[in-house]
């Protein structure tokens, strides 16, 4: 687990310490959230790519040709 730096804005004192259990739990929770978020975004992109390809297939044109048509 990475260290925590705490800065006292009034005195300028800097303390380096080990994270508390609550801070470690929060970091784990954050990591889980980020993984889920990244997966959801990747899944959404994959679904979008699939839908696009279905339309291209119906039109019988390539993605490059579609880009030329629709900019």
């Amino acid at each position, binding site marked *: 687990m990475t*260290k*925590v730096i*705490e800065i006292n*804005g009034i005195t300028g004192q800097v303390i380096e310490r080990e994270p508390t259990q609550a801070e470690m739990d929060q970091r784990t929770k954050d990591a889980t*959230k980020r993984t889920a978020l990244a997966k959801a975004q990747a899944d959404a992109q994959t679904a979008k790519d699939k839908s696009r390809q279905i339309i291209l297939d119906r039109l019988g044109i390539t993605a490059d040709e579609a880009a030329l048509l629709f900019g």
Partner: protein
Amino acid sequence: MALTTYTNGEVLTATSLNDNFTFAAANPPAVASGLTLINSTTISTAGTTSVNDVFSATYDNYKIFFNQTASSTAQTLSIRLRVSATDATTNYTTQRIGSQGASAFGGLNEGGTTDFFINAINSTKGFFETTLFSPFAAAPTKYLTTSLGENGGGLLNMVVVGAHTDSTSYTGFTLLATTGTISGTLKVYGLANS
């Protein structure tokens, strides 16, 4: 060398006048600045950096600058508001727009709603400038960050705006390196109210 003053009828010599010019050049009048440095800290290999007691009734708005000198891995940076040694972990909303190479992108809450997203970083090229609007007021805090980051070896610029919707008075913030550690210089300034 002191400033020389004269009385009526006194002879003003070239030497004395030149000394006064020298004095004036060495002692320019204080120029009022809109920015006041509240805290400057160089952080080294930190995963979490909490800056306490930098927001107060003295200033409404604040600037935070971070110049990254190292990142242990490819990761993202974000900020959480903080008071009484506790970070606020909910009720953030952000809208971002960015570009990498010729590609532009944007989105709402793409980094989630548990912090103010800043950017993706790696290596040593990152920096950000954040403006926090009224974090000390017991009202929602507004947020604006412009930054340079790195993603997949390419530079990534990002502008993120947002708000923290709690009506809580915050006195500090936490800078989160989400996966590994970061090093760099962190500065907090207060913006003069008038």
